[in-house]
Structures are given as C-alpha cells and as structure tokens.
C-alpha cells in the first residue's frame, strides 16, 4: 500500500470521512466475531457442565479466544472503535439464542426483552 493510501486509511480509522460503503466489508469479520464468541461461550459452558471433558473444552475455549482477538483487530481496521465496541454487544443475542437452541436452556421473558433491546440497538448502529 502506498504511503498516501495508508495515511488515508488511518484517517478513516480515526473517524474522519468514515462513510457507509465500508459497512459491507465489515459483515464478514463481524459475523465471524459473533460466531466465534458464541462458540467460545458454548465451549466454556460445556467445560462447566461436563467435568470429565473440562480440559478439552477449556483448551478449545482459550484457542477460540485467541482467534477472536485476531478477528476483533481485523474489525478495528474497518470500523471506528466507538462503532465496533457496541456492535460486539450483539454477542449476547447470539449467546442467548445458542444457549436456547443448542443447550436447551430456557431464556426468561426478561431476557427476551433485553434481546429485543440489543436487536434495536444493533440495527440503529449498523444502519447509521
């Protein structure tokens, strides 16, 4: 990348001139971020509920955490921190859904109200 392009990109990162077209580029890293984080929470939950497999699930969870760190940095190259940080809050939605469907855990009515709040917030931030 030429120096001017790098400077332009850094300016974009700093928030100046950041515009909507970049949103499409963020779909993949954001989806991966949420997916990996959800998978990580599932593994930690399994580590807790299956004592005889605890080491395996915990090791997998730590491995996923490292992958998540890389994905988060990828996301930060595309979105300002002030936008990326609240968007990652959507992981609570995916974790709630995953625990409901995969782990057969019941999510309370209050929990679902919170999930609606997260969806509205996510839509507002993503469609800014």
């Amino acid at each position, binding site marked *: 990348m030429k120096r001017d392009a790098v400077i332009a990109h850094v300016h974009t990162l700093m928030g100046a001139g950041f515009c909507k077209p970049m949103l499409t580029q963020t779909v993949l890293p954001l989806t991966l971020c949420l997916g990996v984080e959800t998978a990580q929470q599932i593994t930690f*939950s399994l580590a807790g509920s299956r004592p005889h497999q605890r080491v395996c699930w915990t090791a997998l969870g730590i491995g996923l955490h490292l992958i998540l760190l890389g994905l988060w940095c990828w996301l930060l190259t595309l979105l300002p921190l002030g936008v990326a940080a609240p968007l990652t*809050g959507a*992981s609570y939605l995916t974790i709630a859904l995953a625990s409901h469907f995969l782990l057969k855990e019941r999510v309370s009515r209050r929990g679902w109200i919170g999930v609606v*709040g997260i969806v509205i*917030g996510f839509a507002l931030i993503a469609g800014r």
Partner: protein
Amino acid sequence: MNPQRSDRRRIPLDLLMMLVALDVAMRLLEKAAVVGSLQTHTTFALGLLRQPWWWIGIALGPFQLWVWTGILARTELSIAYPLSSIAYPLTMVAAWLVFHEHLSGQVWVGAAFMTVGVAIVGSAARPSVRPLAWSDDRPEISSTNREATQSSAGMR
C-alpha cells in the same frame, strides 16, 4: 432473604469501576495497536505483535479476570453484570476523546439500546433473582458453573 444474601446484594463499586476502566483501557490499547500496526510497512499481524500497546493490553487480561472473579465473590452476577455493561458507552466516549472519532446521534441512541439490552439480559442471569433464567431440569449444572460461563462472557 437471609443476612448473607442481603450482603451479597451490596455493590462493590470500587471493583466495578476498576473492571470498567480495565475494559475501556484494553479496547483503547487494542485500537492503538491496530492503528500503529497499519502505519508500519510489515504485514498487519507482524506489525501488531511489534506494538507495545498490544502486549500491555494482553497483560491486562488476567488482571481483568481477577477483578471480575473478585466482584462475583462479593455480589450476585445479576447485579454485577448489568452494571458492567456501562463499559460500552464509556468506550465510545473514550474513543471520541482519545481517537477523535465522530459518532452520529443514531450510533449513540443505538448504543443506549444495546447497553440497556445487555443489562437486562445480564440481570436475568441468576436463578436467585429471577427463577426463569436458567432451566431447573438440568441440575448437573451448578450456579457456580453459570458464573464461570458468564464471567468469561464479560472478558472479551
């Protein structure tokens, strides 16, 4: 409600403030590392590993985990969790102050919804407050395990 329970409903504000500060600081350090890495002429990953900000952020991780387990030892998850979601708007304020990010009104409103949503989901996290949160038909999963799971959820 027994005395021990009422004691656990007291909020350890000092630890919570430390947790939120650490959370915001780690996000800022990661952002600084990413910006620094993009300014180098090596590959992104290699540039990242050469950033001191990156390693400081990594080093704060275990400390943050220690603070969070300290909070959970002193109060209930359903109280600690909603309060810790304040880290989202504070990260945005910090990003605005430190990196001069311009965030639209819509993003702030969205973040408010997100914060409240996460707080509500978090407040439903323990059976001691709202019995519907976790299924009773899985007795093999103790509340301690729930805490362990939830604590790692906050450690991103």
